[in-house]
């Protein structure tokens, strides 16, 4: 059964979240770029 082995008790701060951080920020940049793109269209037309 799952979870019967020794439980991993790493504290949250010891995980490396660098990849996650970059992925989240890329998503953020994409969302902002889409928003400003739509706004630029609205202003230009």
């Amino acid at each position, binding site marked *: 059964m799952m979870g019967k082995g020794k439980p991993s008790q790493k504290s949250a701060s010891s*995980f490396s979240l660098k990849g996650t951080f970059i992925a989240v920020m890329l998503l953020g940049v994409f969302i902002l770029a889409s928003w400003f793109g739509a706004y630029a269209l609205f202003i230009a037309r």
Partner: protein
Amino acid sequence: MHFHKYEKIWLIFGSGSLIVFLMVLGFAAFWKGTHPQSHIETIDPQNIEAHEAFQAENLGLHEVEDGKYIVNIVASAFNYDLGKDENGDIVKTIRVPKGSSVLFQITTRDVVHGFQVAGTNVNMMVEPGHISRFETVLKNNGEFTIVCNEYCGIGHHLMFGTVEVY
């Protein structure tokens, strides 16, 4: 509760965006008066002529002052009634000078239609019982096609017109 340093950064970023977007929404709605195009005024769709703007002689383009225009339109399956010109011919093209401020007022006598001037910011739903309004400054030269973008029946694709900005 303990947060990872990176987690704090993107939570602040996310919450910050939410606050910024809500402020933009509030600013647009309460300060700039941006609302849905058919929000206040209702009309009897069986008797739209009771409203001055939609009487046959008032349809189409009118200059209210220098550089300021009103266009009254009645949508019905499957036509935009833009009035008649001085020769009594049906108007299909509206011509306005570049930089004009144009208020489009439109209603429908039957089903839901769309009113989009493709390539501009004019894009409204036209619902029976409501008057849809949109005011815009036409700042680019060109010919812009008016299209119905709400499926309204078998002749939906026959509903079109032109706005020419010169």
